[in-house]
């Protein structure tokens, strides 16, 4: 018999979640004794909220948000893994007006989702740049202003937007915030303490099945996205070529010598110190590495 | 029933506090119209005739005094379907055809249309609007609209009938015809009628008693009994006795 487990993804169906689709379609979760319900995300779905409200057992989050909630509001979260060892967000610009590193941003207009403003400001400070010297404006996922030159750069997933820009005939340049000191995980796997206590076995099973699926996906990132064209990726308004690009680009950000989802001491340390720079005080206790250890 | 179907106002007073000024529209109006009687009210413009009628209908509250319609308070009499009214302004519902406007009282009183359908047509014919049943009020002339209001006032066989200058917009000939018809219907239904009019001759022709009002404050100055036999016929208009009464009323009206 299988046990029910619900996961809340952090965004709409795109290559960011290929591993889970593969696991579902290949029956890896079922094999692990899980009846997994997969919930897509979106801008109004706040992943931490869904597990607090009990609508999902497990979710993928931005660690800054999660750790801030634990530290400042005593939210009962535990991070039990991370999909991205390196956060894919970065500064994307046009090759014709390139921004290669943080200091190039001085005097430029940078579009940033309001959520990420503190991250960008932290990264700028780490690199000795006064955030006031960069004109930061809101960003809502549409790269048109970048293409038209209304903004000089945007904060976006480096795994995704360069493809779009390329398609639009504008070659892109990008760098990760991670590579300039803002060393965060992303899509951290988060559960509530209650679920951790009650469903520990299921969570371990989920990690195990997911790791297997992701490894299979990343073995050749071009293989799997096309297989979901008529299922998981149907009707998203995106293209399979885009997903293949995305899947390939994210491979180095996900893979870890310690295995996919790994929470290494070094990684946690980097993550916490980066957060420290924006005034978020996290601790090792917010992470529970013991589940991964069981795989 | 007989006594009960009358109209009785006792010491009614009403003062309007408008922005123009304070107007004592009615002072100590006492008026008893026995059941089955026909009373005409005549008086200068603004003397309170319409206000008397609106108070008797329960549309306006008196400041002083009491009102009984068929032995009940006005609203109760209205609810019982005893009253019928033609306002000074025709007050037709613009989206309803002539026929459906005449039917409004039936609908308010929840009288089955099936039974009263013939009556509706009869009333429309009576006021000479045969053929205009489906016309909307906006497609009628001023006088035609007033006639619809008359038909509507009569359609329920009211025990107590109020009419506020119902024939003001009609030509002489039609007005005479309507006078005669009104007398006939009133006699047939045995109703108590209160008619506000500016036509002295009309008042004398129709009424048992003519109430003359003066303005500032609105008050009753004289009640004149009209002795002519019923049914009265148009030749009465040429009768010297008729003219004498008319002249007397004109004098009273004049403030003589």
């Amino acid at each position: 018999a299988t046990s029910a487990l619900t996961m809340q993804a952090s965004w709409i169906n795109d290559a960011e979640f290929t591993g889970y689709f593969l696991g579902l379609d290949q029956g890896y979760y079922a094999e692990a004794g899980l009846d997994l319900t997969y919930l897509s995300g979106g801008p109004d779905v706040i992943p931490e909220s869904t597990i607090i409200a009990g609508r999902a057992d497990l979710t993928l989050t931005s660690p800054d948000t999660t750790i801030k909630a634990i530290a400042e509001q005593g939210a009962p979260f535990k991070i039990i893994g991370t999909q991205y060892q390196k956060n894919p967000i970065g500064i994307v610009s046009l090759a014709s007006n390139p921004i290669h590193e943080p200091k190039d941003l001085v005097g430029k207009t940078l579009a940033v989702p309001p959520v990420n403003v503190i991250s960008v400001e932290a990264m700028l400070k780490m690199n000795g740049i006064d955030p006031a010297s960069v004109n930061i404006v809101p960003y809502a996922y549409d790269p048109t202003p970048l293409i038209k030159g209304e903004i000089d750069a945007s904060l976006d997933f480096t795994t995704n937007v360069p493809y779009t820009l390329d398609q639009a005939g504008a070659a892109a340049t990008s760098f990760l915030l991670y590579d300039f000191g803002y060393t965060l995980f992303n899509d951290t796997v988060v559960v509530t303490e209650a679920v951790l206590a009650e469903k520990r076995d299921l969570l371990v099973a989920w990690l195990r099945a997911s790791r297997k699926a992701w490894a299979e996906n990343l073995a050749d990132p071009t293989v799997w996205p096309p297989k979901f064209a008529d299922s998981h990726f149907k009707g998203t308004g995106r293209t399979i070529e885009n997903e293949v690009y995305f899947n390939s680009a994210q491979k180095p950000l996900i893979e870890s010598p310690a295995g996919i989802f790994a929470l290494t001491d070094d990684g946690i340390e980097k993550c916490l110190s980066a957060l420290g720079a924006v005034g978020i005080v996290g601790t090792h206790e917010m992470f529970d590495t013991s589940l991964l250890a069981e795989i | 029933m007989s006594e009960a179907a009358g109209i009785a106002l006792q010491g009614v007073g009403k003062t309007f506090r408008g922005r123009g000024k304070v107007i004592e529209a009615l002072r100590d109006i006492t008026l008893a119209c026995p059941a089955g009687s026909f009373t005409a009210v005549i008086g200068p413009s603004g003397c309170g005739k319409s206000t008397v009628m609106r108070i008797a209908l329960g549309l306006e509250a008196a400041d002083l005094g009491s009102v009984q319609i068929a032995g009940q308070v006005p609203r109760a009499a209205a609810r019982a379907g005893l009253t019928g009214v033609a306002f000074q302004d025709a007050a037709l519902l613009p989206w309803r055809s002539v026929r459906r406007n005449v039917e409004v009282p039936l609908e308010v009183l929840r009288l089955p249309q099936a039974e009263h359908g013939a009556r509706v047509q009869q009333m429309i014919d009576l006021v000479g609007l045969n053929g205009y049943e489906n016309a909307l009020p906006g497609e009628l002339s001023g006088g035609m609209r007033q006639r619809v209001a008359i038909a509507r006032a009569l359609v329920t066989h009211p025990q107590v009938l109020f009419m506020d200058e119902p024939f003001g917009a009609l030509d002489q000939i039609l007005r005479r015809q309507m006078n005669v018809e009104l007398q006939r219907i009133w006699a047939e239904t045995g109703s108590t009628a209160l008619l506000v009019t500016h036509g002295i001759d009309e008042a004398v022709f129709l009424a048992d008693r003519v109430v003359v009002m003066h303005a500032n404050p609105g008050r009753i100055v004289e009640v004149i009994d009209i002795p002519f036999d019923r049914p009265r016929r148009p030749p009465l208009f040429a009768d010297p006795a008729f003219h004498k009464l008319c002249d007397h009323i004109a004098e009273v009206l004049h403030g003589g």
Partner: protein
Amino acid sequence: MADDRAASGHALRNVLILLAIWEIVGRFGLVAGGALPAPSAIAARLWIDRGDYPPHVAATLIASGLGFVIGNLAGIGAGIAFALSSTLLRIFRGVNIVIFALPPIAIAPILALTLSGMAPRITLAALGVYFVTMTATVIGLSQTDSRAADLIRAYGGGRYDLLRLVQVRAALPAILSGLRIAAPNAVLGAILAEFGGGGRWGLGAYLLGSLGRAEPERLWGIGLIATAIAGLSYAVFALLSTRLVGATRAVTLNAALPEDKAAPGSLRHRLTIAALTIALPFLLWWGFIKLTGVPEMIAKTPFAVVDYLVLSPGAESARAKLGAALMQTLPITFVGMAAGLGFAFLLAISSKLFPRAIAAFMPVALVTQTMPLVALTPLLVLVLGRGVGLTLWVTISVTFFPAFVTLAQGIALVPRSAEEVPRAYGASRWSEMKLVTIPASLPYLFAATRLTVPRAILGVMIAEWLATGTGLGNLLNQSRGYLDYGMIWSVAAVSVLLAVVFYLIVVGVERRVLKRLGMATAE
């Protein structure tokens, strides 16, 4: 009838002219360096994407359709109840405004969290519909001709008979104007919920996926399909309303003064009502949280908000942030209010003076009502920059439409005999407007103002969120990212509170002015 046909022919011609201009502008990239695609390019893209649309359109149709029906039933029902009892109206006034002024950006996540399946979409669609239809119903019912009321009462008819025989029919054009506004609101509401709610189907979901493609043709295609859905419904109700309005106009002018609304009662009675009015929104807020069982961390009760802003250790800094944001938002809100109302007013007047031009403008107006601003912002930013111009544009676009339709309806109901007075003296159209049309439709002008004022702050917040990165809108969005629910609810509460204040100011002015002019107030 023939006139009708000629007029709609001219309107069609004007629409074609508009399309041709758009095509040229798009083809030659005359606006925003080509960020505005030509209609033909949009059509071509639509053709390519035609396979994608059916499930999305179906989902949006269902959600917006159900929301439309539910919201309108509630709106009409509540409108009737409020017209019957001004006490009820007063008690619920707070709740009503809250429903109208609640920022969708704030409630969408709560809905996504507390409801499942189609429910959040239907709810957001219904919420977008309720207030306008309720307002339209109340204004329609309140403008009943007192002569008709006298007639019904003279035959012993009660409140219900008046409603049944007179008021509902007299209010039909007004109610239909509510339904006309409701159509785009329902569609937009559904799309916004689809956009953020994480579902896979619906035009909103499709839009979100398409947003990152830098392909304006696709975005416009989605927007225009949404407009078509709303436009169809709009057109049906507009047609019905033009058919009905002629026979609803009074034939002769009613000079009678409206009855004094039931005396306000004793001071104690009034205070009780005022207290209830204020308490009810908080009570419902509190009740909603308790009933849905949303966790405390997310759902802040009124007490929690007070705690957050006054008592908690971070209260001071929270207040400072909130205050600073408010000071950024407030000034431009007043300008936006005036601009939205002014634009609506100009349009409404023009719809009387130049009916064909305005008929041709209607499709454009509908696009602005159904095209989600997230999709439009890049273009707007390119054309208007990220300053006051853009904020005003966004504020006007979220406020003008209900005001315009309501006002135009009022203008259409002015009795012909009133207009003929100046006309008989050779008055110009404008002087006729000034002397008769505008004063006669003042009750509708105030209703329009009541529809505009609470929304203005929302418009400014949307602009802040999408483009300027300042003020309450930005604060709200940032707080969402930090799971700072205390701040989210505080911002929502403050913005709604402001809306209520603006609304009450209008109600006060309205009551005074209409009373002086001897007109019936709706509120």
